[in-house]
């Protein structure tokens, strides 16, 4: 125990004492900074899926498990999509770089939950194409949700670094601006899905509107040239 304490004390100060001229955190290896962050986000983001599965298997989803699972996966998709949208404004406002490192993971998780949400809906309707088609065509509530999922699909498919290179950044960026449309449709879908108490979807609307406003303000201002 003693040894450990001594060592840790030296670990904190030793480097600086020996080389005061160097920055405090001396040369890291090739490992990316904050190596725990992205994996933590992925595992944390997948955690609700695991709990949901566990809930389903233990009967903890209540009397109407399919409905509960549909609702939760939809909420998870929207929440994660909003979190992914918050990354860039947060980075710009604070100067932190870490939000940029988790944006992709959050976006992909959002797509994953949206796809799962749709899959549960398909299961709910016994994968009957006629029923699903009628819903998508005739009921705006379903149409907008389905459209949001469709819009997220190309974004998920072009989420790799390779895809950015292939498309070229400006084109890739323009494509990924579809996320605004997807988020708006997602929020509308949530609004229409609620029978009466519109407070939770209203919160989602306000958050998304706030994030959009931040971007628009940003865009109006001339960008500082280096």
């Amino acid at each position, binding site marked *: *125990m003693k*040894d*450990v304490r001594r*060592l*840790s004390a*030296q*670990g904190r100060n*030793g*480097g600086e004492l*020996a*080389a005061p001229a*160097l920055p405090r955190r*001396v040369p*890291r*290896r090739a490992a990316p900074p*904050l*190596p*725990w*962050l992205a*994996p*933590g*986000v992925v*595992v*944390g*983001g997948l*955690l*609700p899926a695991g*709990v949901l599965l566990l*809930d389903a298997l233990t*009967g*903890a*989803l*209540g*009397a*109407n*498990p*399919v*409905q*509960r699972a549909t609702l*939760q996966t939809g*909420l*998870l998709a929207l*929440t*994660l999509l909003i979190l992914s949208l918050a990354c860039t404004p947060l980075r710009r406002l604070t100067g932190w770089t870490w939000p940029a490192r988790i944006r992709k993971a959050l976006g992909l998780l959002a797509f994953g939950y949206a796809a799962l949400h749709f899959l549960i809906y398909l299961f*709910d*309707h*016994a994968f009957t194409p006629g*029923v699903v088609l*009628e*819903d998508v065509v*005739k*009921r*705006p*509530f*379903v149409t907008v949700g389905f459209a949001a999922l469709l819009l997220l699909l190309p974004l998920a498919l072009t989420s790799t670094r390779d895809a950015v290179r292939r498309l070229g950044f400006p084109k890739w960026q323009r494509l990924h601006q579809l996320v605004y449309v997807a988020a708006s449709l997602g929020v509308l879908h949530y609004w*229409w*899905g609620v*029978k*009466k*108490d519109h407070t939770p979807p209203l919160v989602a609307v306000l958050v998304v509107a706030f994030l959009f406003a931040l971007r628009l303000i940003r865009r109006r201002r001339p960008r500082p040239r280096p």
Partner: protein
Amino acid sequence: MTGMPPDLPEKAETDPQAPVRPRREFIRNAALFTGTVALLGGGLEALTRRPGAAAEAAPGEPLAQARRPLGPYDTSEAVTPYAQATTYNNFYEFGTGKDDPARLAGSLKPRPWTVLIDGEVKKPVRVDIDTLQSWFPLEDRIYRMRCVEGWSMVMPWLGFPLAALLRRIEPNSKAKYVQFTALHDPKQFPGQRGNVLDWPYVEGLRLDEALHPLTFMAVGLQGRVLPGQNGAPLRLVVPWKYGFKSIKSVVRITLTQKQPRTTWALAAPDEYGFYANVNPAVPHPRWSQATERRIGELRRRPTLPFNGYAEQVAHLYKGMDLRRFF
């Protein structure tokens, strides 16, 4: 040397270029990783996961003796387990969540309880619930219950036909409709502290619908006193209509000349009509009504016209355009 990895180079302590000790870094990263997982995962859970199944109602006082054989209006389908029938409820007076009624039903005091019966009647009366109940022999009815949201249950009610009550108070010749009003008391109904709906909850029936032998006033469920979340102490049950017509915790029954302005039809007139007969052919604007999930089953089943009671009630609507009068 306790707990030291043997391969840790001693000179690392003096070499500024050496990497941070791998074990320390590993522990630090593991801690930060765990923290991230806990923060994001926990946050998402808190935001999106509903608490598990609510506790079922403590069984109320027994109300009736052993079941009699099935009556002419009973369905022989499997009855929805008490645990589910008392934990999955739409009762916005307690809150919009399905488990809110079960959680909060304790605040409703079903005794003492007075029911006012007035309007176009020859014998208006203000009557205590126990007295009202004693006027009629209790019957049991096993009815299908179809919610407008697309799920259904099979409920073993205890109570008396509304027709028996109406005959007793004698509607006059001007009476065309029956209006029901639920209790309005935010102290007992926490959901009424907000204005999710225009309180009190009001429902109504045409007089001939109200007099139909299927139309029932329930005071019990599964041989016991009706639990708060199911509409204690007195509720309407109209099995061929969507569940929201079957108003709970009734305090007033008024015979009227005009069609009552009912709560959901006022709140969303394009989605919920006055008639609200179960009809697989008329979709809700946001979902199809062609199928339903029987609580306890994973697969949907087809929804039947008039919830399977067409033979008994379809004649009430002869000549009406049920797409218009949904």
